[in-house]
């Protein structure tokens, strides 16, 4: 199995507090992604990274920031958590980008975040 771990697995936090989720990989893959999964919406891309210090926004990036100072770590920060950010967050890694287009994602086990 690909080495990708997310921490913490579960977190409850209060509205207005900052929260950082961590994704760590041991595969030396260039691409890393953060998704959120909500009922009725499937998986939606928050931010992604295509290299160290190279990141870009996804479709639901408002209220989130990311950092990637090392190949193996991709951090997702909620600057001031809101109840609408209660969700399950998944990190994914991918070896290649662009073509060929048959590279899949390997996902972590997720972080269940509850904002109260």
């Amino acid at each position, binding site marked *: 199995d690909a080495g990708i771990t997310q921490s913490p697995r579960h977190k409850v936090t209060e509205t207005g507090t900052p929260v950082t989720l961590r994704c760590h990989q041991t595969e030396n893959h260039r*691409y890393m*992604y953060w*998704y959120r999964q909500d009922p*009725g*919406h*499937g*998986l*939606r*891309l928050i931010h*992604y990274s*295509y290299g160290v210090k190279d990141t870009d926004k*996804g*479709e639901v990036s408002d209220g989130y920031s990311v950092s990637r100072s090392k190949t193996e770590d991709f951090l997702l920060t909620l600057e001031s958590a809101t109840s609408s950010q209660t969700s399950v967050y*998944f990190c*994914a890694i*991918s070896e*290649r*980008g*662009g*073509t*060929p*287009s*048959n*590279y*899949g*994602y*390997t*996902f*972590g*086990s*997720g972080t269940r975040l509850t904002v109260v």
Partner: protein
Amino acid sequence: TQLLEQSPQFLSIQEGENLTVYCNSSSVFSSLQWYRQEPGEGPVLLVTVVTGGEVKKLKRLTFQFGDARKDSSLHITAAQTGDTGLYLCAARGLTGGGNKLTFGTGTQLKVEL
């Protein structure tokens, strides 16, 4: 935004039955993938299809990519309780997007004895 519609949303069947799950879009995609997700875990890649009309088989699972590369189907023969899970299709677009995948909303399958 490229939308991927999956149907049905929920499916509950008895062990031994056959089923088909559909993934449709109005956009053309360069490739399409199917994932399965179990409770408390992340999605796991099942298959990638890249050629219009392509059919791939994985034991009792048959995946097809539409000729126009706008739709795909997953057929399971003689379902087993171990097939229970959330099935997600995901696609890459032809214009822009690079390696980023767009996911469908998923089909929740429950197979009972």
